[in-house]
């Protein structure tokens, strides 16, 4: 109520004060017609007090003066003139006027203090809220929350935060910022003192001209903007659009504080991002070095045998038997496919390292995926007994089929490569709490204890013995793909011998927005 009345347009406040005086005059008139009451003029003090507490200082003074004049005009002999017959009456009137003045000022002070206390309480709550939501690690989410809190806390129609940067400024908007929409905000920034002139003045208040306004004289006093500064440099703008125009120092104060907090939060977020980018660069660099090391050997070996085989076939002075020709040709095809495999593994790996891997998930029956992969890789695992153990009641899992297919293929290939023909490979799936677990267990020599973590590093190769060489990338790719799904991959040695590679996939609940195709 208090706040509402305080927002009355000034003219209306004065009118209300005068109406109150008029009402009191009527009441006095009615009473005077029946009985004589001494000092009945004191009734006017009620109108003055009400004006002071509800409407403010100015209307209270107006009420005092109006009461003085009305009492004089209507009730002091001679009636209907402003002259006063009795000097005693004069004295009473003057005392009344002084009393009304003093009372009104005391009441208005009280009112101001109450308002200020309310504002400060609101500011404190708001600042606390803002500080809390700014703790959000994601800057966009934090900004959305801050603009929303500000809009509700200040009770204004719209709040906007605009971040400068390369290219178009980024805006976060809460509510209706119609006066700022459409045309170039001027870009808000253009209306704000430049960094230099703003330095010193922590936050300068400006009024933004309505960009749609035809003439520059149409200022929109409803928009208040404050620059976001860090180290004297402007990084953006915070602005509110108010329902009515006119200054409101409490709002300005809180906006200035919020702007300071916002600026430092934004700066922190940018520093964080730069650190992340540096980390990505560092890892990319490491990968590049490992790649260069690998290229010299892993890519050259197949190339060498391709070139040698092709060259042999072109010899004109040798007559190759049909079997020899066939062997050269199959070498060429085999090694070319190997190269292709290395290259696509490298591509996968670089996509993972650059953080651009986004699984395209859908709901799948894990058992069907395992059957598909085991079936397709049968030519590769022909020498082994491959057992699949999957329970009947596995729930559907949300996954990217191509990627998890790749993970399982790489693990199976790895098992087949490092174990002797005739041994068993067991592929199993199970549920463990909120995750699905897939295991590929073999009967081979296991992984040396010192290599348990390193097997998932790119280009790592264990002691291969007489096993055919792999690309050194399969397990690294598998790890990247599993982690992109929010799962974990690890390897353990079974006490009875053999290695168990296991990876997990989180089981999620189907979203509520499913189509009927899920029912």
């Amino acid at each position, binding site marked *: 109520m208090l706040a509402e009345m305080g927002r009355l347009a000034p003219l209306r406040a004065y009118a209300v004060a005068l109406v109150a005086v008029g009402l009191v005059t009527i009441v006095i008139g009615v009473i005077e017609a029946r009985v004589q009451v001494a000092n009945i003029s004191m009734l006017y003090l009620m109108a003055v007090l009400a004006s002071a507490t509800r409407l403010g200082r100015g209307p209270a003074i107006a009420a005092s003066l109006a009461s003085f004049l009305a009492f004089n005009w209507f009730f002091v002999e001679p009636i209907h003139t402003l002259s006063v017959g009795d000097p005693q009456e004069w004295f009473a009137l003057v005392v009344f006027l002084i009393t009304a003045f003093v009372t009104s000022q005391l009441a208005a002070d009280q009112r101001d203090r109450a308002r200020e206390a309310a504002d400060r309480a609101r500011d404190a709550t708001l600042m606390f809220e803002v500080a809390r939501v700014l703790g959000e690690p994601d800057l966009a989410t934090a900004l959305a929350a801050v603009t929303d809190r500000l809009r509700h806390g200040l009770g204004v129609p719209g709040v906007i935060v605009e971040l400068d940067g390369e290219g178009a400024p980024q805006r976060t908007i809460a509510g209706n910022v119609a006066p700022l929409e459409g045309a170039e905000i001027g870009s808000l920034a253009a209306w704000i003192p430049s960094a230099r002139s703003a330095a010193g003045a922590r936050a300068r208040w400006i009024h933004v001209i309505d960009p749609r306004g035809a003439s520059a004289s149409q200022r929109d006093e409803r928009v208040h903007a404050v620059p976001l500064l860090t180290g004297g440099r402007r990084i953006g703008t915070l602005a509110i659009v108010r329902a009515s125009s006119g200054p409101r120092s409490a709002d300005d104060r809180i906006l200035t504080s919020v702007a300071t907090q916002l600026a430092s939060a934004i700066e922190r977020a940018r520093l964080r991002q730069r650190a992340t980018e540096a980390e990505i660069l560092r890892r990319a660099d490491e990968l590049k070095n490992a790649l260069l090391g690998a290229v010299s050997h892993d890519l050259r070996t197949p190339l060498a045998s391709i070139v040698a085989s092709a060259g042999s076939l072109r010899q004109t002075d040798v007559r190759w038997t049909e079997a020899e020709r066939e062997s050269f040709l199959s070498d060429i095809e085999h090694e*070319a*496919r190997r190269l*292709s*495999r290395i290259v*696509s*593994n490298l*591509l*996968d790996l670089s996509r993972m390292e650059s953080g651009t891997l986004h699984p*395209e998930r*859908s*709901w*799948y*029956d894990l*058992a*069907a995926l395992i*059957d*598909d*992969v*085991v*079936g*397709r*890789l*049968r*030519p*590769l695992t022909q020498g082994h007994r491959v057992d*699949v153990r999957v329970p009947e009641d596995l729930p*559907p899992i949300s996954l*990217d*089929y*191509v990627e998890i*297919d*790749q993970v399982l*293929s*790489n693990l199976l*290939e790895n098992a087949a490569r490092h174990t002797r023909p005739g041994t068993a490979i067991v592929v199993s799936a199970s549920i463990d709490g909120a995750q699905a677990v897939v295991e590929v267990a073999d009967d081979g020599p296991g992984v040396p204890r010192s290599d348990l973590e390193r097997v998932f590093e790119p280009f790592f190769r264990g002691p291969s013995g007489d096993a055919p060489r792999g690309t050194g990338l*399969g397990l690294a*790719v598998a790890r990247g793909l599993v982690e992109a799904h929010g799962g974990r991959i690890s390897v353990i040695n079974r006490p009875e011998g053999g290695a168990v590679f296991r990876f997990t996939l989180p089981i999620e609940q*189907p*979203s509520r*927005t*499913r*189509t*009927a*195709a*899920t029912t």
Partner: protein
Amino acid sequence: MSPATGARVLLVDDEPAIVRAVRANLGSRGFRVDVAVTGREALDRAESHPDLILLDLGLPDLDGLDLIRALRSRGRAPIIVLSARGAERDKVRALDLGADDYLTKPFGVEELLARIRVALRHTLRSGTDEPVFRARGLVVDIEHRCVIVDGTELHLTPTEYGLLTALVRHADHVVTDAMLLREVWGPEYGDGDHYLHVYVARLRKKLEQDPQNPRYIATEPGVGYRLLSEDAHPDPARVERALGT
């Protein structure tokens, strides 16, 4: 000779080695091969109505997907898309735009010939909607809503039956997730969160004796499914591809 003898194939690819190999292989098997190395050239050549188009998605001048749209507006010749592994999204979009099939580079000659055979056979057969589909022990009687595998009648739910008939309608062709969703659940289920793959898995459980070696429904990872009407050729390329080729 093969039924495709004399068929005209338009090969759109800007890689000379591929063009040479494909031209030699198809030419020696009686195909007439026309070559375009740019998208614009392809549109020109398509005016002469080839029987089949082999289209590389990564052309220098035109976006591959735009080209498919343009080619489709010019004629009904089957289009087989050639693209690199990892470009599953492009393949799916190409198929949804009207391409008939795809081949992942690098591909073997056997695989290429098999795809061309299927694509051409389909053009010959299209238009005759046979009421009964028969393939290697599988009988789908559309008229009587009855499915028999090796003489035993199967009990399928309406959804499973809908999936099977949708696959049968496109026998030997890859059917994308979006196409299946549309045909079985209706046009409004083009994408979004769905259990399509779980239903296909259930259907396969009823249909297939050896789930690791499916006779009828093959998975095309990341793209969709394919109903096989004849025995799949043992194909070493598929194994290599599974390993990331």
